[in-house]
């Protein structure tokens, strides 16, 4: 193909993309003259270049469209949807011609007379300024008009090459006219004109919009292939550097170390720099969307507003290409299925215009893209019907499913709940493909939908695919890489004790905190033989490593023999003859120069037949995981006999060193004057020897205005840990024993010590909310699956004067509800197995006899989104799990509010 034409195609394709978006904006702001000039100029450039390159068909269409645009610009013609549609049609035609041109190198055959006739009609009738009637149907007369082109246009076409061009510019932006070279002198040299035009363009931009010209002047068009090659080279360089560093590490003293460190830095910078060249703003993938939404809304008679936030968020070109289509599909879906007709919207009390919001942002090495609409949401009823219709689940199974679980079905192949198939969507090819595409690039997709309120998809994708961090593991004597992206955590499983691998009919499982984790043995699925000693079921070497891996919402463990390091690796595709092995997503060269296969967690999940289970367990395990991973700040101290002790830091108000000389004793109790009040001191475990000690450390627990001090021997540390009480404590004062910081540690029951102080201390203070009216004690129902929290909160609440009933699951609570028990307030955890707090609240709110009982959610992650969801589900309050003060004040406040209301 002609170089000039190739250049023209690249340029025109870019212009056309931006015209699409610009036109939609123009339709909304018809008076934006800058925008109009820009569109006009683009069309004009296309026309001009076509004339020069000898592309008559393209030129004619562009020319006629430009005429109509000219009318817009001159204010003769109002920017109305009909006319914009006409321009869109012209642009589409130009696209078709360009596509043909790209393929064959010459203009494709075709008849544009109908379109041209309509454009001409608008131009002539408006150009004369004598007619106000809307666009007539022109099919019948098209031929006639075409055969007799208006005379006045001919001179203009013939003047194409030079003068008219410059004149057009001058007309548009008068201030440029001095700089623009005079048209006449360039008559014989059209390319020069084109250049001059470009120049004056950028100049006018510089005046009108300085930002744009700054960008265009500093950017350079580089072939993508060049960049890809560069990237490959840099990747190689990174690998070589890694090799060198590995060698360096083995050698203590060498003169190479300084230059190598320098090399290391430079290569890192280089890598980053080259990566940057591959980055593109996500807005590029969105540029088509306004047009799509516009067309859909016109076709379906809906009013849709598309809001795009974070267009400038950059991500790897490769990733961008992969998500372009899924995104388009989902936005289309939102407009078609999600947003209702204006009438329906008004009837539902929503604004007539529906909003689709696209929001992209960075978060911890990932890009998050949210696609939200305020439409009708997913209809549970319809999904249900469809599931039954397609035989994907039985009615009984559906009854036990949560709304979220049912919603997951929309990701199944052939699942569309649109009632009728429109040209836009409803053909049932869709969300499954979307999910597959996104998971292919190591991303995940999440769905939140509230019927009647809207739907939100959240896509999480990696920044780049080229270099990933991977965990190197060994199985059956071979090393493999697992992309860090899918790895949630590493667990060491011993043969005995709490962390052992258990078997259910030969299938290994592992208790990961509150859940049973299905396991696969990497050695087995890869068909490798066991290295002599280790064997899963019996004795053997002892410890095994479980790589807890997540694919979508599905969590499972991969048993490996050894775990090495993490390494930055460059993913290279596997050779053709190995493509069909699902378990590998690629291969790479490690720092030591050896080749290693990269495991594909999705493939492992699939090959073990667990992908089917994915939809069913996904939601539950996913939520459980969040809960399970919650860390607790703990205060470690030493007191009494045996193991170190721990207490949740959030329960401790202050740490004090109290001089033994200030301790007084009344009636067998130790007291100390503390902040102007008497504070009782309780020695841990009965006795602390105060003889010969000048100061003792005291943990101060405060409730309202009263405090008590727990005397300990030594405060050791504060650390963040996952708390799993493994052995329940039998003796008073201990909740149980947990492994903290690798040591068995007793977790103390603060409630016990608080209660051991004379109850009156805590009962008599003035702002006690429950007894001031002489009412009986308020009844609280506490639902939490974790014994740790039940044990911690029960004494706290009962000391505060509530009558507490604790239950470990919402199901048990609902049973109580059926039995007719009543409570004044319900406090519920959110993440629980079987039924989560949201579902529990929804159940309670949907007509149970507890409908009017206030409910307070207790959770370990209280983000605004969670709070919104909690409120939507029917919770009255939302409190972070360790916030004792807020819990008590919220309870009191909610109760008094409800008391007044009833």
């Amino acid at each position, binding site marked *: 193909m002609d170089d000039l034409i190739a250049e023209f195609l690249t340029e025109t394709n870019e212009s056309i993309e931006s015209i699409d978006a610009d036109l939609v904006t123009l339709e909304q702001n018809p008076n934006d003259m800058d925008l109009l000039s820009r569109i006009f100029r683009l069309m004009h450039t296309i026309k001009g270049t076509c004339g020069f390159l000898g592309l008559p068909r393209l030129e004619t269409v562009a020319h006629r469209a430009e005429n109509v645009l000219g009318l817009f610009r001159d204010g003769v013609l109002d920017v109305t949807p009909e006319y914009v549609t006409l321009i869109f049609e012209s642009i589409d035609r130009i696209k078709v011609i360009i596509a043909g041109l790209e393929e064959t190198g010459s203009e494709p055959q075709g008849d544009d007379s109908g379109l041209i006739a309509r454009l001409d009609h608008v131009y002539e009738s408006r150009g004369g300024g004598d007619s106000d009637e809307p666009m007539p149907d022109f099919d019948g007369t098209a031929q006639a008009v075409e055969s007799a082109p208006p005379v006045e246009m001919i001179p203009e076409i013939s003047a194409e090459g030079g003068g008219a061009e410059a004149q057009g510019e001058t007309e548009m932006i008068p201030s440029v006219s001095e700089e623009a070279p005079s048209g006449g002198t360039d008559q014989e040299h059209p390319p020069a004109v084109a250049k001059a035009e470009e120049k004056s363009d950028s100049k006018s931009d510089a005046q009108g919009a300085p930002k744009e010209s700054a960008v265009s002047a500093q950017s350079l068009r580089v072939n993508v292939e060049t960049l890809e090659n560069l990237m490959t080279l840099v990747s*190689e360089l990174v*690998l*070589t550097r890694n090799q060198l560093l590995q060698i360096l590490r083995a050698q203590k003293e060498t003169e190479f170390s300084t230059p190598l460190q320098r090399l290391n830095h430079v290569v890192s910078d280089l890598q980053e720099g080259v990566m940057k060249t591959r980055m593109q703003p996500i807005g590029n993938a969105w540029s088509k969307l306004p047009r799509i939404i516009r067309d859909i809304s016109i076709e379906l008679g809906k009013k849709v507003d598309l809001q795009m936030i974070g267009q400038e968020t950059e991500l790897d070109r490769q990733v961008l290409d992969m998500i372009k289509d899924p995104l388009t599909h989902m936005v289309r879906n939102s407009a078609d299925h999600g947003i209702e007709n204006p009438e329906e919207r008004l009837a539902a009390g929503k604004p007539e215009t529906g909003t689709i919001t696209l929001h992209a942002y960075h978060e911890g090495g990932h890009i998050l893209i949210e696609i939200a609409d305020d439409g009708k949401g997913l209809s549970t009823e319809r999904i249900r019907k469809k599931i039954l219709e397609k035989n994907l689940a039985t009615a009984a199974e559906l009854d036990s499913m949560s709304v979220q679980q049912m919603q997951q079905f929309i990701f199944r192949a052939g699942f569309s709940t649109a009632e009728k198939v429109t040209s836009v969507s409803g053909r049932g090819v869709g969300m499954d493909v979307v999910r597959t595409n996104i998971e292919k690039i190591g991303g995940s997709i999440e769905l939140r939908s509230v019927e009647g309120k809207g739907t939100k998809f959240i896509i999480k994708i990696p920044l780049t695919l080229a270099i990933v961090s991977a965990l190197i593991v060994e199985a*059956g004597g*071979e*090393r493999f890489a697992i992309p860090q992206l899918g790895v949630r955590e590493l667990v060491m499983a011993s043969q005995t004790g709490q962390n052992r691998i258990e078997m259910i009919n030969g299938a290994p499982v592992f208790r990961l905190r509150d859940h049973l984790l299905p396991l696969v043995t990497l050695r087995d699925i*890869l*068909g*490798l033989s066991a290295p002599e000693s280790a064997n899963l079921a019996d004795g053997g070497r002892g410890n095994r490593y479980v790589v807890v891996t997540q694919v979508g919402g599905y969590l499972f463990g991969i048993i490996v023999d050894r775990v090495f390091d993490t390494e930055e690796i460059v993913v*290279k595709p596997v*050779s*053709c*003859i*190995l493509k*069909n*092995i699902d*378990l*590998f997503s690629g*291969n*790479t*060269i490690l720092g030591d*120069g*050896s*080749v*290693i*296969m990269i495991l594909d967690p999705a493939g492992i999940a699939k090959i073990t037949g667990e992908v089917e289970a994915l939809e069913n367990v996904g939601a539950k395990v996913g939520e459980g995981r969040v809960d399970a991973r919650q860390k607790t700040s703990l205060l470690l101290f030493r007191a009494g006999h045996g193991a170190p002790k721990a207490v949740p830091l959030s329960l401790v108000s202050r740490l004090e060193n109290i001089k033994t000389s200030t301790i007084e004793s009344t009636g067998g109790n130790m007291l100390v004057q503390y902040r102007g009040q008497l504070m009782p001191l309780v020695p841990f475990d009965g006795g602390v020897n105060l003889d010969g000690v000048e100061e003792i450390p005291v943990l101060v627990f405060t409730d309202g205005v009263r405090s008590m001090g727990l005397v300990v021997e030594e405060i050791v540390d504060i650390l963040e840990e996952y708390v799993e009480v493994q052995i329940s404590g039998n003796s008073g004062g201990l909740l149980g024993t947990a492994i903290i910081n690798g040591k068995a540690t007793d977790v103390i029951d603060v409630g016990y010590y608080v209660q051991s102080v004379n109850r009156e201390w805590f009962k008599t203070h003035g702002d006690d909310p429950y007894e001031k009216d002489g009412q009986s004690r308020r009844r609280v129902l506490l639902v939490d699956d974790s014994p740790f929290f039940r044990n911690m909160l029960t004494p706290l609440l009962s000391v505060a004067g509530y009558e507490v009933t604790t239950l470990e699951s919402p199901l048990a609570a609902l049973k109580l509800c059926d039995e007719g028990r009543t409570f004044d307030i319900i406090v519920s955890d959110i993440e629980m197995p079987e039924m989560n707090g949201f579902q529990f609240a929804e159940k309670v709110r949907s007509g149970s006899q507890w409908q009017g009982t206030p409910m307070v959610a207790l959770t370990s992650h209280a983000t605004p989104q969670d709070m919104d969801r909690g409120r939507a589900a029917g919770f009255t309050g939302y409190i972070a799990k360790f916030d004792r003060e807020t819990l008590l004040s919220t309870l009191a406040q909610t109760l008094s509010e409800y008391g007044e209301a009833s």
Partner: protein
Amino acid sequence: MSGFSNASTTRKKEDSSASSDQCSDYLTIIISGQMFGIPVLQIQDVLGPQKVTKIPLAPPEVAGSLNLRGRIVTAIDVRRRLGLGPAEAGKNRNMSVVVEHEDELYSLVIDRVGDVLTLQTKNFESNPPTLDPAWRNVSVGVYRLEKELLIVLDVSRLLGSIKI
């Protein structure tokens, strides 16, 4: 890694009398005592024994993959491909020749690499029908040399038919 030039130190001409005839160059390789030939122009590298990473679940003919100057090369066990048993230990040098096939590199693991021969097409014959079908599939034909026969391997057929 022994270079290509090492392997091609000696270059003989079989039957130089018929110089008018068309000639082609072949690298000879020895597998299980049988001489095979691969057109020289298809060969990228000749390698000594390499550290090969095994690939689980791969077809049995795939010996693994190796790192050739930063490129990942799939190693093919030609003995297995030809349906021959494993080589006797210690007898062979386990060399390989690297070829390109559909834009990817493959290293063919063989017993030994011999000389580069310039052979005349008049000595070429198509496969005898009695040849083992497994061999017939990967062979283009046979050259009659003075003392022995050389089977010409068709690289694309040798690699193309390996499937999982």
